[in-house]
């Protein structure tokens, strides 16, 4: 993955909706244009991050899967 995150948030083991709540706080702590790497193990995270970025206007730059982990790169846009 070529995206270099400015901050990493590990939500492994957390159930819905905690990954989204923690992602919101982490993204809010970034500067505009910076990228958060968020790691989750909840399979629902994929659709949740899609919906959350669409709803909030932040950008899902990339995503990948490593074993049982779902990894998202989210750029703060506003």
């Amino acid at each position, binding site marked *: 993955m070529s995206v270099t995150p400015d901050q990493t948030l590990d939500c492994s083991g957390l159930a*819905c*909706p*905690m990954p*989204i*709540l923690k992602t919101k706080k982490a993204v809010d702590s970034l500067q505009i244009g910076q990228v958060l790497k968020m790691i989750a193990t909840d399979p629902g995270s994929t659709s949740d991050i899609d919906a959350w970025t669409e*709803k*909030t206007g932040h950008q899902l730059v990339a995503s990948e899967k490593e074993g049982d982990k779902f990894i998202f790169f989210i750029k703060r846009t506003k």
Partner: protein
Amino acid sequence: MAEKLAIVCTHGPEDPERATIPFVLATAAQASDVEVVMGFQVDGMMLAVKGCADHVFAAGFPPLKELIDAYLEAGGELYLCGPCVSSRKYDPATDFIKGSKVVNAATFVKVFTEATNVLNY
């Protein structure tokens, strides 16, 4: 018009899943920049009684207390049905967690009609 979600909770600690899911939706909405108001009627108002939610756990979800704390931290309020509170002999001045407001029907009507969507649990 700004989006506003009203969530009505009518189940208390006797049904952990129905008590928890409204807070899952409420906190997710807050995190999605959607304004939220929660109303508590019937046994749902029990969730605002101090200590009542501390030991409510639904399988597959975070502890209810954790969700309520997150909801309050994000500025959420709990509107409690006045007659439901009175009939259960609770004291609005001392018995409820912070963020609780005991209200009557006209307030609920105002809150619900101002919302863009209302969810009832």
